[in-house]
């Protein structure tokens, strides 16, 4: 069985040649992951995608065109990035527009992944939740504070949608490999191999060298192994590229957890089949005693306003900390509390923050991002405006440049960055039925 992952993130750009070459290999399904928590908590909270609509529509159009021509299923996981209800709605809006314009009529399954707060609080009361990668147990108070909570579905909802004869499956938040592996798993292939193949294909061409740009990847699953190959003729899969990709974004490469179990890579072998293909075998699925789902949630922590400025004056750079503290003090004279004011100093520790071990400034100029987060947008804007004007005009010992301390590249200088969210739920919940959180609706239009 052959699966084509046209790209690693729906909307990042499918190279047309890779798509065409991939389709020549007669895939049995097109599967693409559309989500991630990588871009941060904002998108899940705000209910917005992190991909561009025009780019997303182009990629989706290419996939649907290929599927329409060959009559093969399309499986999309983590629709709209965050995979919540508004993300699913956004994806469906683009999908329906493409279908309308091209007169496509697919039997479509839509799978929700948003978690009801009342249900989750019941699970907390029953002791069915546990923390993941952090020490804090989930509380009802934290659930109630969340702006949105989703659960990562496993393979089962996709497989159920295939049972319902869906031609296109658009699913909310999902375990990344689930869309890739649902068809082969349903066909009876070894779950360890299917899941491992899914883990590699979910990032598209990222497991091929040279590693640049969004690209496609083919997976061929057999009884006792699977083979991966980039359809792009300019790229190759090597043992190093595929094995290294197994490490990518994972805390422990030997044991990768997923809904209902884990895959164990202790006996996995990677072999170079030919210059462009790598064969993987030996990965084993280990069923968990209890079926757990990963929960993701965010809470709103305020509203951000920011300004970007540069400093070139060496006299000021030499006493930057005292200067920034002076600004902070002047702002506090007017606004004693109710906000957070931060200075990101590029040229010093703007990139690494607390982890930066180079303490002195070595460059002739520094970049400043002045950031305010407050409970309401007006306070945020007011505090930032004062910090910006104080920053421009406060004096300091030895000052020669009395007209102004900062170079602003933009007018307006103050930029409203909107709502700010933080991840507050990263926990597991035990369920009896892998399908229970994920309602499937069939849409014939």
């Amino acid at each position, binding site marked *: 069985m052959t699966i084509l992952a046209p790209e690693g993130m729906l909307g990042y750009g499918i190279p047309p040649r890779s798509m065409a070459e991939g389709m020549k290999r007669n895939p049995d399904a097109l599967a693409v992951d559309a989500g991630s*928590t*990588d*871009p*941060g*908590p*904002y998108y899940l909270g705000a209910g917005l995608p992190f991909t561009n609509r025009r780019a997303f529509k182009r990629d989706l159009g290419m996939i649907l065109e290929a599927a329409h021509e060959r009559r093969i299923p399309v499986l999309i996981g983590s629709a709209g990035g965050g995979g919540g209800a508004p993300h699913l709605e956004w994806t469906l809006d683009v999908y329906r527009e493409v279908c309308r314009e091209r007169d496509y009529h697919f039997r479509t399954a839509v799978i929700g992944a948003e978690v009801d707060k009342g249900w989750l609080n019941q699970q907390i009361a029953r002791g069915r939740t546990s923390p*993941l*990668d*952090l020490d804090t147990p989930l509380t009802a108070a934290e659930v109630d504070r969340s702006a949105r909570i989703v659960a990562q579905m496993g393979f089962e909802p996709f497989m159920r949608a295939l049972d319902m004869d869906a031609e296109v499956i658009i699913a909310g938040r999902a375990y990344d490999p689930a869309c890739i592996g649902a068809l082969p798993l349903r066909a009876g292939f070894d779950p360890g191999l299917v899941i491992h193949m899914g883990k590699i294909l979910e990032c598209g061409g990222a497991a091929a060298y040279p590693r640049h740009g969004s690209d496609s990847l083919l997976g061929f699953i057999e009884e006792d192994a699977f083979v991966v190959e980039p359809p792009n003729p300019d790229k190759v899969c090597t*043992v*190093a590229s595929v*094995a*290294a990709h*197994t*490490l*990518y*974004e*994972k*805390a*422990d*490469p*030997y044991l990768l957890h997923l809904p209902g179990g884990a895959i164990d*890579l202790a006996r*996995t*072998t*990677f072999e170079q089949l030919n210059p462009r293909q790598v064969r993987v075998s030996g990965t084993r699925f280990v069923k968990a005693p209890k079926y757990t789902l990963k929960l993701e949630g965010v809470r709103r*922590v*305020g509203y951000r306003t920011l300004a970007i400025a540069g400093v070139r004056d060496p006299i000021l750079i030499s006493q930057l900390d005292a200067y920034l503290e002076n600004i902070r003090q002047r702002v506090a004279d007017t606004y004693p509390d109710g906000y*957070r004011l*931060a200075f*990101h100093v590029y040229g010093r*520790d*703007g*990139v*690494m*923050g*607390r*982890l930066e*071990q180079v303490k002195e400034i070595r460059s002739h100029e520094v970049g400043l991002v002045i950031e305010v*987060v407050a409970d309401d947008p007006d306070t945020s804007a007011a505090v930032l405006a004062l910090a910006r004007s104080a920053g421009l005009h406060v004096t300091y010992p030895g000052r020669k440049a009395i007209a102004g301390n900062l170079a602003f590249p933009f007018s307006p200088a103050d930029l409203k960055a909107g709502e*700010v*969210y*933080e*991840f507050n739920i*990263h926990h597991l919940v035990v369920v009896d039925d892998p399908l229970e959180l994920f309602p499937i609706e069939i849409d014939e239009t």
Partner: protein
Amino acid sequence: MRRTIGDIAAFVTSKNAGPFLLTLDIVFPDKATYERFKALRTLDHVTVAGLYGVMAEDVLKIIEFDPAYAVKITMRRAWSSGAVGESDVYGAQQHVPLMEHVVPWEDA
């Protein structure tokens, strides 16, 4: 002779492993280089913690992954990705202290 890990490795990268963890990968170009590096026993929890100015217990795992000729280090993030005070949402530019770490290395 001394070399940095960046001189020896094919790749040294950092990335989030979920919103609460940061993971660093060192991938060596071949088995021989990887085995030589492993034999140095140069990376332990205290050393890595020192490179980043964190507590040794915040360095959660150091794993040698033979199939990829790679060493993986997973650290606790000081705050969740994108929280107020963040400097690198994806965690993609936190590799340099590891890359510049100097180890004893005789050129073959």
